């Protein structure tokens, strides 16, 4: 039995259902997924603390999105591409991006592959086909369309996962990207992580349609609304949309309904706009606790497993932080690298 502090909406599955939904090694998949979710949570909690202490400049937690991110990482294959939106860093880690490298990025130090040029939570991980992101909302959606065009043209067997939030469905490139993908019938899965808030703006005021997924029909794109706090349903939806894309059956829009469990970012105060009962509603749909309660209830993991996995995750995070904090800042010379392919441009530099 779960303790009252972890009272959540139970996952509605019998173990006998899961072989068909998730494959024969379903129990191993759920344990692996759960451990990754714990890592995501350890990272969020430790980094939010460091941000408040002034040790990292900024942090955007993905607390509440763990099922979507971990399922995205586990359901995709190495040859697939990931176009992140805002809170998908865990997808990169699950696909094999090393945690210490990601933490170097968060500290914007000289071992960050992008040399500290971005705000934290904007990593690039080419080795796992995880594309660089801007802070502009929505522009990445048509990049996904272009990558998927390449995959189709070269028949490389891969598919593209594109992530964005509920706010991005109002952006120009949501329209352009889905429209192009529909017209060219591309192997792309558009993943809308609808956490119901675009900073302070509730989803009901983002769009007059009751479910964002209904927009898919306007583009000839397959659509499905998914409980994004249910790891089983989320994994299954992603796998089947990716399979559909790989088979050449075209693009999908998946709307993952999740609950934002933290402020928008370390610079936000949700007390100004969220209703008083929001934290309680969000807690009931905590994806980590929902999966935890089910795994414990079925005896697939023990309380002891969980405690020890949490400790391991936190230790990994802390050890990466220790290394990053001892790593020097990027050199001033790196300011003018990578602007163009050749260093002969730009001409203006510091100490000119």
């Amino acid at each position, binding site marked *: 039995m779960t303790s009252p502090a972890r009272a959540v909406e139970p996952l509605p599955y019998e173990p006998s259902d899961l072989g068909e939904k998730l494959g024969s090694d379903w129990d191993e998949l759920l344990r692996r997924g759960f451990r990754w979710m714990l890592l995501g949570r350890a990272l969020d909690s430790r980094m939010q603390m460091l941000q408040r202490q002034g040790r990292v400049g900024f942090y955007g937690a993905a607390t509440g999105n763990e099922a979507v991110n971990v399922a995205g990482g586990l359901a995709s294959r190495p040859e697939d*591409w990931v*176009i992140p939106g805002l809170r998908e860093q865990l997808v990169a880690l699950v696909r094999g991006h090393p945690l210490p490298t990601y933490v170097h990025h968060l500290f914007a130090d000289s071992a*960050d*592959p*992008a*040399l500290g*040029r*971005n705000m934290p939570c*904007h990593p*690039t*991980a*080419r080795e796992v086909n995880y*594309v*660089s992101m*801007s802070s*502009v909302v929505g*522009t990445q*959606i*048509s*990049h*996904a*369309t*272009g*990558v*998927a*065009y*390449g*995959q189709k*043209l070269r028949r490389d067997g891969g598919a593209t996962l594109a992530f964005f939030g509920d706010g991005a469905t109002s952006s*120009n*490139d949501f*329209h*352009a*990207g889905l*429209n*192009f993908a529909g*017209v*060219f019938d591309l192997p792309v899965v558009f993943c809308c992580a609808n956490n119901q808030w675009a900073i302070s703006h509730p989803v009901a005021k983002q769009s007059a349609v009751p479910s964002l997924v209904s927009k898919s029909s306007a583009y000839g794109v397959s659509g499905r609304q998914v409980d994004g706090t249910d790891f089983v349903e989320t994994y299954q939806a992603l796998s089947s949309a990716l399979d559909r894309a790989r088979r050449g059956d075209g693009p999908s829009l998946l709307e993952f309904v999740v609950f934002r469990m933290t402020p928008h970012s370390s610079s936000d105060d949700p007390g100004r706009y969220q209703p008083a009962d929001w934290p309680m509603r969000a807690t009931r749909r905590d994806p980590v606790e929902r999966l935890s309660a089910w795994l414990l209830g079925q005896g697939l993991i023990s309380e002891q497993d969980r405690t020890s996995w949490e400790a391991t995750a936190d230790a990994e995070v802390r050890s990466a932080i220790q290394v990053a904090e001892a790593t020097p800042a990027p050199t001033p010379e790196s300011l003018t*690298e*990578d*602007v*163009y*392919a050749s260093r*002969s*441009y*730009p*001409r203006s530099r510091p100490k000119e």
Partner: protein
Amino acid sequence: MSEMNIVQAINRTLRDAMKEDPDVLVLGEDVGVNGGVFRATDGLIREFGAERVIDTPLSETGIIGTAIGMSLYGLKPIAEIQFLDFIYPAFDQIVSELAKFRYRSGGQYPAHVVIRAPYGGGIKGGIYHSQSTEAYFCHTAGIKVVIPSTPSDARGLLFSAIADEDPVLFLEPKRIYRSLTGEVSDSQEKVPFGHARVVREGSDVSVFAYGAMVPVAQEAADALGRDGVSTEVIDLRTLVPLDEAAVLASVEKTGRAIIVHEAARFCGFGAELSAILAEKALYSLKAPVLRVTGYDTPFPYALENVYLPNPERVVRAVRQSLQAG
């Protein structure tokens, strides 16, 4: 060598590049079946198929965003924006995304897209088929801005653009698309970026121009020559990267500088050029740097010829410079 105009040179170059490299593809509005509204992509779809000569839905942000994704994947997209005036829905994609991918990814994801766009006035295109807004793009680090003025340069610079590793905005002077023909090499020789062309040598005054203003500057130089004024005309060819050495060398020789562009004057490319001359060539200058430009108004329809710089205005500026000291 063959005699051809600028549109034909571009068409021929696109065909040669696509033949050579299966990763090169063309996308844009009306570029396939219709061959482009200016026919720059005429015949390509028959030769290379609709998968590589892509008629897109009507969305500039979709065209450039998709081209960026293609480039990340490893293809070499050449996107056509039908008129430079229509590029602004893609401004976010160009400025926030395309120009910054290499930098923000630490070189992991350079995005190389060639954007071709006809620009400029002189075809009775009114406000929205005439503008020269190259300065918006020159201001953004991470992209290159190229403007040919002859059929031969159109070919050589386009080859360079396609081979370049950086994003390139390739602006085509539509006013002289067909009016100007010249000998164009059959070879695939590139014209390197950052090398201005001395159109004619002179010793009394330097006139800097690019694109459709180069023939205007030449005509002015011809008229001045009849009066014994020796005018040097420099075609900048690429605004980013700029051949600063050529600009400074010319002004050090003549001591007088006139900048001609059809874009509006305020914060136009001439302002940057003028600032460079003030910073680095002040002691060579015998007279103030003068600009002959479009006016700080929207581009007009009926009054197009009032707006656009012409040889007479260039001649007047040269005379003003000669009288100044």
